[in-house]
């Protein structure tokens, strides 16, 4: 067998193998796409479950809806078009999450806005409380000195010891 023939044979084998794998690949993609699209839709039987998770045997909704979804996927339609088709047929209620456009998109913004407002409040509070602390220290340093006595010395030593102890307790 010449080199060229051997190469041709290998190429033919590769093409044959690849072509035999194509339907499998398409099937797998269809299943994954089906699952992914099914997760964007709700079952309309009233069970409140995701379309692909509805576990009612002979459910009047999920069975036909899944068949419809498969048919769209087999036709090779784009994801958005498939979802839109379901929305037109069943209304916006078929979507498992609020749309990102129009009034219903507000649902998506609420947590973010709440976080932003909350973060603003927390940061403002921290700044305010720190300023208050600085002001308190400034006032304390500006206060008239306590008369120096042996008792105040002792208190100072005790206070310093307590401070060091508190530092150790909280830092360790």
């Amino acid at each position, binding site marked *: 067998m010449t080199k060229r023939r051997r190469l041709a044979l290998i190429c033919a084998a590769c093409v044959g193998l690849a072509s035999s794998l194509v339907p499998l690949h398409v099937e797998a993609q269809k299943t994954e796409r089906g699952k992914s699209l099914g*997760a*964007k839709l*709700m079952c309309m039987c*009233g*069970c*409140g*479950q*995701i379309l692909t*998770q*509805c*576990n009612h*045997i*002979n459910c009047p909704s999920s069975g036909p809806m899944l068949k419809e979804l498969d048919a769209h996927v087999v036709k090779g339609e784009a994801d958005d078009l498939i979802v839109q088709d379901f929305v037109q047929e069943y*209304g*916006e*209620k*078929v*979507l*498992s*999450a*609020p*749309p990102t456009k129009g*009034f*219903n998109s*507000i*649902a*998506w913004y*609420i*947590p973010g806005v*709440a*976080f932003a407002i*909350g*973060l603003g*409040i*927390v940061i403002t*509070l*921290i700044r*305010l*409380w*720190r300023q*208050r*602390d600085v002001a*308190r220290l400034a006032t304390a340093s500006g206060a008239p000195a306590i008369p120096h006595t042996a008792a105040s010395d002792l208190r100072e030593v005790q206070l310093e010891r307590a401070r060091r*102890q*508190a530092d*150790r*307790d*909280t*830092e*360790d």
Partner: protein
Amino acid sequence: MDLFGSYALLLAFAFALYAIFGGIAAIITRRPLLIKSARNAGFAVCVLIWMGIGSLWYLFFTDNFSMAYVAAHSNRALSPYYKFSALWSGQEGSLLFWSFLLSIYVFSALFAYRGKHPELMPYVGVVLAGVQIFFLTMNNFIASPFQVLVGPGAGGILHLATRADGSGLNPLLQYPEMAIHPPTLYSGYTGFTIPFAFALGALLGRYPGEKWIHLTRRWTMIAWAFQSAGILLGAHWAYAVLGWGGYWGWDPVENASLMPWLTGTAFLHSVIMQEKRGMMRVWNVWLVFLTFMLCILGTSLTRSGAVNSVHAFAESNIGHWFWGFLLLIVIVCVAAYLKNRDYLRSDNQLDSMLSRESSFLFNNLILLVACIAVLAGTLFPVLSEAVRGSKISVGPPFFNRVNIPIAMFLLFLTGVGPLLAWRKTSVESLRKNFGFPLIGGIVAAAIAVALGLREFYVTLCLLLSVFVTLTILGEFYRGARVISARTGSNIFSSAAQLTMRNTRRYGGYVVHFGMVLVFIGISGQAFNQDKQMDMSAGSEMTLGPYNLYLQNYDTTSEANYSAERATIDVEKNGRSVMMLYPTRRFYPSNQESGTMVAIASTLREDLYVVYAGTNPDTNLPVIHAYLNPLVKWIWLGGAVVVLGTILALLPNRQAVMVLSTAAAGQSAPVPGSAHAAPVSYSARSQLPDGHD
């Protein structure tokens, strides 16, 4: 017995009215006899409610089908176990059960503080009686469980009727956990009434200082532990009974239980700020109010039918009563706050951004945002319908997308919080404490990525879980090392001593570790697999490393149901490892079916097999198998959370030792201690237990 129950509840209502009006009169007149009398009325209310619920249980156990509620939720063939739990399976019974649990809390609180805190307790008694009056109104006049059956007699006159047998219990509720899950969850909901009553009472009575916080801390922890356990038991029930392969579907009822848990968790953290630093008084009062309001809001949502739920077994038109009650609570709380807000003024000061105080602020922020996200998702369909006239669905994709980042941030704070000191943390100390846990987390994540993990959030969860675990272990190790050096005991014994010296702090760490386990378990969801097949005897299904052979399927008949059962031989690596028996039951009394899922659970994964029914086209059983990794970690984590809370509820051994030593002139040996050495204050001060 029906009359006995009815009269008991009516009397309870009358006594509750006396407790509230007598209590108000006692507050105004300050007459001790009146205070005592109102408190005793509170006790009487509780005892009468117990009599009422006792009589309803009696009616269930004696198959009294002349009672509408018993006939609707029980039947003769029902096992005594389920007759017991059938009491809370419907609207009327569950409301009475709510009153019953509330009465246990009320009785305990009134009894525990009888003769103490005379300036506070009359207010608390009035608030508690107010809440009880609402539920007793429901029990007596709106949704009485003691209604009798009537039927038309001669001449169109209604006569008392009785049925030969009842309709039976909803099959979804005929699962052992249903005897535990609702009482646990309801104990959580009702338990938050006590901190609410103390907070409102303290505000109304301008009770000085942080005393009410100290008084209610344990009550809040008990309610929180029940709520946590109730939520997880509910998740486990959904997992084992509903047969859809999951445990949490962001259902409105699930969300309703999660919201007060989130604010309750925030309160348990921020209350430490008030105790330690006298900060955030207004915030804490409002967190308690909010938690109680969310308990009532969740109940309103699910009982009014405003939102649909697979968990709602007690839906009816009583929702507007709950909305009214909620509105009243809001008005009372706002009025009390506006009137006495000066009492809550606190001297908030913060030394540094890098401090325990800021970490608590961020922790509260994140928990509240999570609560708002859940509330927004739960209520948005109602809002959308009101504004646009059409309802939309807000399902798991929304909640997962919004809440997963929040949960990751929270997990991060769980690790960071304990590393920060009160007032100020030096950068050097932060580097020293952060270094090892952070490197550990990064190494774990790097190994997982090298082994093929490509899910971003799962990798992040792993990193943070290792980080938090190492942080917690570090905290135990550092403290135990000091004790070990002093006492010479081994590190484990020292860790145990350390824990018992500051149960609240180290119990809290155990709770954090439990949450880490829960997070790890939830992260396994990213790798769930499932397969559904019509299977004939001898056919095979492959799922992950398992081969499932359907050996046969048969039918059995029990007193209360008939069942179709599949016998499945499970092989792993060519070796038979177990037999599974997924079952589908049919209950003739109410013509309904239910699944009994077969679950083979390991720490690595759950093999979850459902007998989903028979395909009418092929006449073959439909088997749906799921491979759910790490689910067991969630239940394990839940158990650790509850254990940690119990630990945190125990009194500090250190405090007892110090007191006993002090009483003995600081020189007596410590009873029960491994080393009978005198305990001195200097020994205590060596321990890093000054911050929790």
